């Protein structure tokens, strides 16, 4: 049981590293889709009771959203935006991966500080992976120029949280979880729209040029 979970978690880590290192939008989107699918599987694997309707429902929803809907949406946005396919990074790929490693170490260290409280047993890897994935997502947002990559980063971050959610939290009723998924969905949707507008407004989705509003002129 836990071995399966751990395996999936390792998969999540790997996908995150791939994202940090990859240089083309297309591949990024595909990797994110893969990560989504992994999470769907995780939802089932991490359950501590036998497969209830709840978990299966959740698994389906998450796979559907994270694995299919978002990638499709983003791919469309990418197509509409007709941008060059390279991810002009603010921080190079090598350094990015390096940062990723540091992030992983930090996540492990921080997780070691957070002893899980008495009763709830949780797979050893869950907390560090969740934190790491979150940091990776944040790093993608900070370290990449295009709005698209930032949406992807946001998704990865969301995934990390989701990992924590399914891995640790059992008590939360399905309604909230679905609400969560829905919100993420709408969030990404709205961001997609915004991205669309940006591309139409500036014929690029390079947020570095979104700098008209500031209180400082060097």
């Amino acid at each position, binding site marked *: 049981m836990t071995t399966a979970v751990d395996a999936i978690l390792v998969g999540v880590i790997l996908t995150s590293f791939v994202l940090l290192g990859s240089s083309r939008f297309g591949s990024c989107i595909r990797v994110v889709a893969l990560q989504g699918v992994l999470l769907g599987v995780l939802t089932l694997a991490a359950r501590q009771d036998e497969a209830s309707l709840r978990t299966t429902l959740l698994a389906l929803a998450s796979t559907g959203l994270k694995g299919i809907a978002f990638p499709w949406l983003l791919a469309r946005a990418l197509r509409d935006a007709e941008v060059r396919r390279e991810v002009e990074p603010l921080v190079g790929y090598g350094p990015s991966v390096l940062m990723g490693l540091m992030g992983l170490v930090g996540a492990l260290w921080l997780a070691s*500080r*957070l*002893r*899980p*409280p*008495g*009763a*709830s047993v949780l797979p050893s890897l869950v907390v560090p992976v*969740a934190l790491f994935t*979150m940091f990776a997502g*944040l790093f993608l*947002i900070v370290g990449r120029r295009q*709005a698209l990559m*930032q949406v992807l980063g*946001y998704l990865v*971050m*969301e995934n990390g*949280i989701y990992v*924590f*959610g399914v891995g*640790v*939290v*059992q*008590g*939360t*009723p399905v309604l*909230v979880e679905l*609400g*969560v998924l829905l*919100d993420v969905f*709408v*969030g990404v949707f*709205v*961001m997609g729209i*915004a991205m669309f*507008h*940006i591309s139409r*407004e*500036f014929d690029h989705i390079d*947020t570095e040029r*979104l*700098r*008209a*509003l500031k*209180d400082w002129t060097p």
Partner: protein
Amino acid sequence: MILALLLSPLIAGAFAYVLRPDGPRRMLLVATAVGHALLTGATWVHDPAPAWGGWLALDAMGQLILSITSGLFLACAVYAAGYLGREGHGTRTDIGEGFLFDNAPEATFTACLLFFLAAMTLVTVSQRFGLLWVAIEATTLVSAPLIYFHRHHRSLEATWKYLLICSVGIAIALLGNFFLAVAAAGGGTPLPLVVQDLVGGASGIDKTWLQAAMILFLVGYGTKMGLAPLHTWLPDAHSEAPSVVSALLSGALLNCAFLGILRVQQVCAAAGIAAFGQELLVGFGLLSMAVATVFIPGQSDYKRMLAYSSVEHMGVLALGVGVGGIGTFGALLHAVGHSATKAMLFLTAGNILTAYRSKSIREVRGVLRVLPVTGGLWMLGLFAITGSPPFGPFLSEFTILRAMLVQGHSAVALGFLAMLAVIFVGMAGIVLEMAQGEPGMDTADRPRREPLSAVMPAIALAVVVLVIGVYVPPPLRSALERAAHALD
């Protein structure tokens, strides 16, 4: 009754979206606002019954924020009805750079306004943390189109920043929810993540995880509330959104995020680690005031100035709760005073903007002569927002200061006063420069008269500010005390 509060704006919003003719839609907007306000008023008469098995309930804290939101929304709805009428349809030239742009469809705008109200109401009534989170995220999503009402690149940029930064924050807050769940499971049997249950079974909550959760919530909701250094989206969004939206963001939305933080702090207090959250709040408070101190003096855009002043006052709220004791009471009172004042200022700023067609302070002179009422309110707002007697914010800031010195935070008090002083100098310089003197524009293109719908809401808010400055009604006071009591 709670469901009515929730559903009325929701349904009205849906109608507004499909309603074609402008007139009825604006009527619908105002009518809904009135109805909502009346319902909110009714909650003061007798407490509403909890709904959904205690997921939705109205405690003192929620009632306070709900009343602020609802009252503000009423004023803004009236203003918006007139504003939309004056905006009209069709392509217009940008006041800043002179390019052409359209407005978002008015139906969408109105609908989003009403959804916004619904979401904020949900924030105030939801007792369940997950639901609270959903509600706050919802406010972000429905307010984004409001900011992007004027469809040009600056407002788009503002919207993008707002979306991205707030979503990141919200995501962090979600993790906070999960951490809270873990902490709640500390006692063996997992507690449901409902405020009352957590407060009830606080003894069993795991401290470390609760602290971690507090940090995550603080950073997450703090982003939304505009605490420095998480405030960065705020000046852009407030300066680019239509003034009426800025008023709602500053006056209502920030309080909702604040409520989120208060809920967690409530649990922390029950679990006996109130000091932990308070320490962080004091830090964020001082930092926020410092940021305002940096950016208000010498500011060149008066709407940005107001935005930074919001950052400052969010800092004051954080400080008030942070020092605890009577300070919590002061902070809640300050929330009321600040919301009314700031909304009034933004609506006034909107009038100035429409008259002078410029957000640059340098190009606005002699408002008192061009728009007597607006100018008067503008100066009154200055004195109110900077905490001069006899206006509301004075009492609250006085209370907070007193709490600081009584609790022995002399250094904090010193910094508090010093930064307030610098901010006053900065703001007074700007506001007087704008209000007084000889207007640059020639009398020909001065507006003939100030439309009622543009000044009445601001006047009403000004009256509120003045009244709570000289008289805190006993019911309000008791509500404040109950809410403050929940936090220590």
